[in-house]
């Protein structure tokens, strides 16, 4: 006997989450199946719609960043996932995002914001956490970047020089301070965050005891100079980053911002928390911990056309989940939704068609920063986001795909990863709920 729902979403990242949310809000009984915790811990927490035009797009002008992503979408290549969703579909999905992630900023304009990164580059993005808002690169207030001696992922002086070289319209200095308390040399980002969340008493260098937030502000104060804002690595709390930031701002007397970091990323983990809180509130059923490995077509093994159920593998036991509509949101190469070996490239759950050259030496460009075909590997879809087989027909009538399992776009190059996941996830979930009714 299978566990039954109206809509089953396979994958628990941004695409799967927004698909499940849209389907649940569309009135369907939804179950989300996810093998592991989402890979949002590896995301910066910035939410991009479109940062750079893809090579060869009509909007590909001077190689600079896209000013207005919504204006650029109609010029994208036909097989780009945004073309299936359309500009209005992207807007609709981003409105849902804004409601779900209310600690994000950037919704006041269609134009991209420019945010400094931990490497000292400037990144165009559509939405950014409130904690990063005081850091925008278009702001002309002078900034101080602060790094911690033992948190080697962020070298503040180095990032400051990089930003100045990038031509930001403000003076920026970098300083490295000892984080208060006797943390281990390899303390985890969650350790920093917890000390600040709890505002725990820590040992100061003079041997006294002081609250963590005060002690940190005191360590920074001597470096402040004329800085009108201060940027820290994004470890300022996990549960209540707003309160941590406020404490630091009132102690330092200037606005404080977080600089997005590489993995593991607290802003990514906070976004995961917001997303899952919304799923819970919408009444979505969720099951994480076992991979979906197989499916059962409707009407026995020979009758293609519809998916009847998917099975998770649980230590050798196969447990079926039946539904009326399915969404495939298993991710790309990182999330393991697209697999490859030396023979070919595949989509492992439904064995959907993934176009790729027979000769694997044609999968990549010899130039490391060149235009790699593998970056766009994924399933092609019709306008309803249904994966298409090699003949261009839908693989199944009741299966839609969303997020980086989709082909036809290079999210790393064009900075569109979150936007495509949110927009296609939302559209696939809404269409699934529609089909159930």
């Amino acid at each position: 006997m299978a566990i039954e729902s109206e809509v089953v979403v396979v994958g628990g990242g941004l695409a799967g989450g927004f698909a499940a949310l849209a389907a649940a809000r569309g009135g369907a009984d939804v179950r989300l199946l996810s093998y592991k915790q989402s890979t949002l811990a590896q995301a910066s927490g910035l939410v991009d719609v479109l940062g750079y035009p893809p090579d060869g797009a009509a909007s590909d002008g001077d190689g600079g960043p896209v000013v207005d992503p919504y204006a650029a979408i109609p010029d994208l290549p036909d097989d780009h996932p945004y073309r299936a969703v359309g500009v209005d579909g992207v807007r609709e999905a981003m409105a849902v995002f804004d409601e779900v992630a209310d600690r994000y900023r950037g919704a006041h304009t269609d134009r991209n914001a420019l945010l400094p990164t931990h490497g000292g580059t400037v990144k165009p993005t559509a939405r950014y956490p409130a904690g990063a808002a005081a850091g925008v690169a278009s702001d002309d207030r002078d900034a101080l970047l602060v790094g911690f001696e033992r948190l080697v992922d962020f070298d503040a002086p180095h990032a400051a020089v990089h930003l100045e070289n990038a031509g930001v319209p403000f003076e920026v200095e970098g300083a490295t301070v000892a984080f208060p308390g006797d943390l281990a040399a390899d303390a985890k980002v969650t350790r920093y965050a917890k000390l600040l969340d709890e505002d725990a008493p820590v040992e100061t260098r003079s041997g006294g005891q002081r609250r963590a937030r005060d002690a940190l502000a005191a360590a920074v104060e001597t470096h402040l100079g004329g800085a009108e804002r201060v940027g820290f690595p994004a470890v300022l709390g996990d549960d209540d980053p707003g309160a941590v930031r406020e404490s630091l701002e009132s102690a330092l007397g200037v606005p404080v911002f977080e600089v997005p970091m590489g993995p593991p990323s607290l802003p990514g983990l906070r976004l995961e928390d917001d997303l899952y809180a919304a799923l819970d509130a919408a009444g979505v059923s969720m099951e994480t911990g076992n991979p979906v490995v197989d499916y059962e077509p409707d009407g026995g093994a020979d009758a293609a056309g519809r998916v009847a159920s998917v099975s998770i593998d649980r230590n050798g036991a196969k447990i079926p989940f039946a539904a009326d509509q399915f969404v495939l949101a298993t991710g790309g190469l990182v999330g393991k939704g697209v697999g490859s070996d030396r023979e070919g490239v595949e989509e492992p759950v439904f064995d959907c068609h993934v176009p790729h050259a027979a000769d694997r030496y044609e999968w990549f460009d010899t130039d490391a920063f060149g235009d790699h075909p593998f970056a766009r590997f994924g399933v092609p879809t019709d306008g309803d986001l249904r994966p298409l087989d090699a003949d261009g027909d839908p693989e199944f009538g009741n299966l839609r795909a969303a997020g980086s399992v989709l082909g036809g776009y290079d999210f790393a190059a064009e900075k569109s990863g979150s936007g495509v996941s949110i927009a296609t996830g939302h559209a696939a979930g809404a269409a699934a709920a529609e089909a159930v009714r």
Partner: protein
Amino acid sequence: MSDTDHTSDFEPAAPNPDENHEPTQVFGEAEEFDLRPGADSCYKCSSCDTSCPVAEVDDDFPGPKFQGPEQWRLTQTDEDYEVDESVMSCSNCMRCDDACPSGVPLSQMHNTTRGRYVDEQMSKLSVEYWRNRILANYRTSAALASKVPRLASFAMNFGPARWAMEKTLGVTSERDFPEFATETFTDWWQARGGAQVQSADKRVAYFHGCYAEYNTPEVAKALVRLFEHFGYQVAVPEQGCSGTPMFANGMLDDACRDAETNVASLSALVEEGYDAVCSCTSCSMSLRQEYPELFDFEGTAEVAAHTYEAVEYLRIHEDLAGAVAEADVDGELAEEFAYHAPCHARNQGLDRQAVELFRELDGVDIEDVGDSCSGISGTYGWKEEKYDYSMEIGEEMFEHMESAEGETGMTECPTCAMQMEHGTGYEVRHPLELLEAALVE
């Protein structure tokens, strides 16, 4: 950053003309339990480190990425490598397994490395060794204590005795030992004459573990009545401890001894058409995941594939959601529950099961108190030097419990229940007790 034009002389060689040469297979055939492919899958994203409750509070704990793939590699390259003793600070919550996007068998690495540390480096004369051994072999003490349950419950919590245990053994005196039941589950089972329902095709073997046997037989009885209500023939096979506390303390010989008993008796029943069900999520975790990872007795894989958590089993094989939606609860269990999902339930995909099932149940309310670890992690929070960390890890759960509407806790895990009660004073119930109240006349 300027986007300069990258030029390169790199020209990949033509594919190897010898079709039989497969350059990716340079390590030969994998031996059994070869963790190398797992270690090689680690690309150091550190997601595991952010999931680790101990690394968040303990500055001396280097985190799962070091304890797992990094330290495992060191043990492979140097015969004289001494395992870092910090592996003993891992609480075996296994959250890192769920966090890893790359399928690295972190907890398996922790278990094997910890076993190696205890085997080769830990003094068998040390107080710590014997303290851990006694904690890990809870079943042995419980079996003795249950012969004189009232005396044991008193003596175990007698102030001066607790002080002495902390001073001599390093078992914290902050906690109360659980009460021993005056009648064990198996005594009750035998007194009622065993199974009351016979069935040729609906059969489950109940792996009750230690806690439901000696401390909370009401949970075990609820399981029996519930499964009989759905028409199952229940068997209670010969069994030892599932091994969970032994893995966590690196006592692999003790775990192996009990695992052999369990696999033998359960695989015999599996061959007769039985599936195994557990009421404790750590027991089901152990039989499903740790046995195949650590042991290779005949039938280990079959037992793993046929083991289920009890409520999960009914969700799969019966219309449990439909039955619950039509039921209502009144009386003692018509409560608002503050539910905590045990870490070991998470990896089995069971962390949402109780809240999703009971939100449809009339007469009760249930609220999830968040995704943090309770902090006790079996024997971890019983160790005098870990007690403060244990409570710091649990702080988030305590706060969520206090702010939840209900004042009765709920969880599947016996030690999580101890921690919930210890931190809040709430009485804690098991989902099976509530299901019995809802569905069984």
